[in-house]
């Protein structure tokens, strides 16, 4: 029984670490794609395409490990995570469309950038996780 307990905890820890590593790798390769063409490889198209492919593949890996991490959580942790994801999806969709409409109808003077939406997603997920954890304390 003791070995089984440790297995569950160590599996969750291992998957959490793996998720952190893959997320870091994805952000790192994304930074390469964003800044590399101008500052490192002088707009070479082939290198840029290769880096975009690498970034996409790392992104797929990150999604896969995120699913694995979710499945290694216990039922309550999974519910809190799934609720946070559902709220994030809904808010991103609604805010994203409204934000885009503001841009299309020229009600805002600047362009609606996808990075703004990613920021909203991150903040929403973080707040939803904090509220979820507080609710079941």
């Amino acid at each position, binding site marked *: *029984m003791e070995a*089984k*307990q440790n297995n*569950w905890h160590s599996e969750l820890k291992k998957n959490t670490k793996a998720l952190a590593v893959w997320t870091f790798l994805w952000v790192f390769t994304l930074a390469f794609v964003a800044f590399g063409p101008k500052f490192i490889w002088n707009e070479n198209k082939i290198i840029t395409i290769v880096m975009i492919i690498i970034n996409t593949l790392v992104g797929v890996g990150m999604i896969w490990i995120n699913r694995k991490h979710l499945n290694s959580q*216990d*039922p*309550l*942790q999974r*519910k809190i995570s799934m609720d946070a994801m559902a709220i994030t999806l809904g808010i991103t969709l609604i805010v994203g469309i409204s934000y885009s409409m503001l841009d299309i109808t020229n009600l805002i003077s600047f362009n609606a950038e996808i990075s703004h939406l990613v920021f909203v997603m991150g903040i929403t997920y973080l707040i939803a996780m904090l509220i979820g*954890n507080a*609710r*079941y*304390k």
Partner: protein
Amino acid sequence: MKNRIKVLRAEQNITQAELANRVEVSRQTINAIEKGKFDPSLPLAFKIARLFNLKIEDIFQDEE
């Protein structure tokens, strides 16, 4: 859903953390189940029942 986990734990002198470890969940999950804030999944309910050598319906009761 009401449950008798707290009583059963007290009878067998098991802490929330010990029960959580034995059924492979976090202590937060056991606490939420005991307080009726969270209904366990069927596999988790079976694990808890098996641990106390009882049937699921002897531990969990529908409030309706």
